[in-house]
């Protein structure tokens, strides 16, 4: 977890990551809208959505199984006016997409976040199902063909997406170290103590949900801009929520870099598994095995494990006195 003291090191690592990414971007930029650049954009939109998931799932500890709802709202806010032929500037639509998915998150925080844990998990999954079936079966929402967005310069969209991904990662880094981010972590680690200091648990969770949903909505809107063809299958499907969630989990939720690494790794793995097992749905076998192996061997995810190895090699002599007061929580909610 990123605390205030280990800030410099994480910052340096982030800088290296950004430079590498920038070089990568420049390398592919020369070649226009190809398979590679489309793949990179796909990864980037999942990284953005995963960072949005991470604000709530990682820092507050409420698992959302329906992050695709916010992703889909973002992309459909861009797509629907275009589909109906309204002449609204696209940048405005993108901002609107982020804002509307944030507002929707604020709306659903009341029923779902009041009781800890499972109502939120199942409720968000249910919202995913509701939105998917509504958008899949309603002809007014272009269910039969999907929406085509034409007239977008894909090079500019490409640069914007990469830049927003990097900016979002930096934003999460600063958020995690701000007072708000620390209150998120307090709610996650010790709700009773947090409540005693004067943190309103429900409001803090709702704030995290709204911030995360806004980020995911922005990701969806930008994805719609680049991919230029939006159907419910690429926005509201449960598989999209799963990809967002699994990427963050494998990378290490509750860290800044985790969703970046995890998202890239997971989307790449998925593509690789699809090329290995070509039967429809069969690629899930490799993904499932990977998930089991990752969770059984490195419980916190790939990135924290790498950091731990790194730390062990460099400074083995430090005594371990990290253990805080071991307060037992009564499981009164369950």
């Amino acid at each position: 977890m990123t605390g205030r003291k280990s800030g410099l090191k994480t910052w340096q690592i982030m800088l290296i990551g950004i430079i590498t990414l920038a070089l990568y971007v420049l390398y592919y930029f020369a070649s226009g809208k190809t398979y590679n650049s489309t793949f990179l954009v796909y990864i980037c939109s999942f990284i953005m959505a995963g960072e949005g998931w991470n604000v709530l799932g990682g820092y507050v500890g409420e698992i959302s199984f329906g992050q695709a709802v916010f992703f889909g709202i973002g992309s459909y806010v861009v797509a629907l006016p275009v589909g109906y032929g309204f002449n609204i500037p696209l940048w405005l639509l993108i901002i609107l997409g982020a804002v509307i998915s944030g507002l929707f998150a604020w709306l659903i925080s009341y029923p779902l976040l009041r009781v800890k844990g499972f109502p939120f998990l199942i409720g968000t999954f249910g919202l995913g199902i509701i939105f998917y079936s509504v958008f899949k079966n309603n002809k007014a929402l272009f269910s039969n063909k999907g929406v085509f967005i034409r007239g977008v310069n894909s090079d500019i969209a490409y640069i914007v997406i990469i830049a927003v991904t990097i900016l979002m990662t930096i934003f999460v880094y600063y958020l995690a170290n701000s007072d708000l981010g620390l209150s998120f972590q307090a709610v996650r680690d010790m709700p009773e103590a947090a409540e005693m200091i004067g943190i309103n648990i429900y409001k803090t969770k709702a704030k995290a949900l709204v911030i995360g949903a806004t980020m995911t909505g922005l990701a969806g809107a930008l994805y719609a801009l680049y991919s230029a063809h939006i159907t419910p299958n690429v926005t509201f499907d449960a598989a999209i929520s799963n990809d967002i969630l699994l990427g963050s989990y494998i990378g290490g939720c509750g860290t800044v870099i985790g969703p970046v690494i995890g998202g890239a790794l997971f989307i790449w793995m998925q593509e690789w598994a699809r090329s290995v097992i070509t039967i429809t749905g069969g690629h899930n076998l490799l993904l499932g095995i990977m998930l089991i192996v990752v969770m059984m061997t490195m419980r916190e995810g790939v990135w924290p494990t790498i950091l731990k190895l790194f730390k062990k090699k460099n400074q083995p002599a430090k005594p371990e006195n990290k253990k805080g007061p071991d307060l037992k929580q009564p499981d009164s909610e369950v």
Partner: protein
Amino acid sequence: MNIVGLLQSILGGLGTGTVYALLGLSFALIFGRLQICSVLHGDLAGLGAYLAYAAFTFLGLDPFITMIILLPIFYFLGYGVQSVFMKPFMKLDTWKGRYQGQVMVSWGLGMSVMALEYIIFSGTYKTLNVPYRNNVIRLGAITIPILHIVALAITLLLLFGMNMLLKKTSLGIEIRACSTDTFTAKLTGINVDKVCAVTFGLSASIAAIAGVIFSLLTQLSPAHGFELTFLGWCAVILGTMGYMEGAVWAGLIMGVIESVTSYVWIPALSTAMIYIVLVLVLVFSPYGLFANMRNGGRRKKA
């Protein structure tokens, strides 16, 4: 829309609701009692359904005989899953890694099971054509399929049996002891790990029963496993966590909602309607439908 059709769809909903009720029961057993969290059981039910299908198509075995054969197999499967995959997370605090880890590992297992179904049976819909599938009992204008009656009977019998098991047998007493206070249970000489594994095995057997019933009521597709998992969880939450009967009643109510929606309104929105009802219920009563029955009804609303 007439009254007979509505009654018919309500009765049909009770029949399909048994699958959700049984899955809810199995989740309520492991989660409500021992705080083991799993998203695997829907896929286990799907596996059971496919095994029943394979046994009927290739060996000619009746699904109910297959069900009895599957019970011990799934029991040991569940026992193994708990003692290999879920046990490492049991010593963590519930929300500090335990649930997250268990959700992810069981999800990975479920994904693998689903993928195996895809590889072996392919993604096309399969139907289990037993000769008595379309037999009905007529009550005036209303017809009730025999399978629905059998499914309801099995569900109620299992609920009764589980209650008896938890209240009368020594295993039930051990499970209840672990659910109230794991530490004291350990002190009195109860092997908590073993109790957890046995309970998980029992819940896996219930999932197998749900799967066989599911295979008799609808068409099979590997993608159903994941949906069934969440419908089972939905039953647990609608029926109040920690109140085992509630999961069964909520599962039956969900079946009725689904079937009435597809009769009165749009069939494609029937599953979505369940979740709409869930969200609406959570607005008014955050602990579910039977909120004042939590903890066995002894303590009123914590």
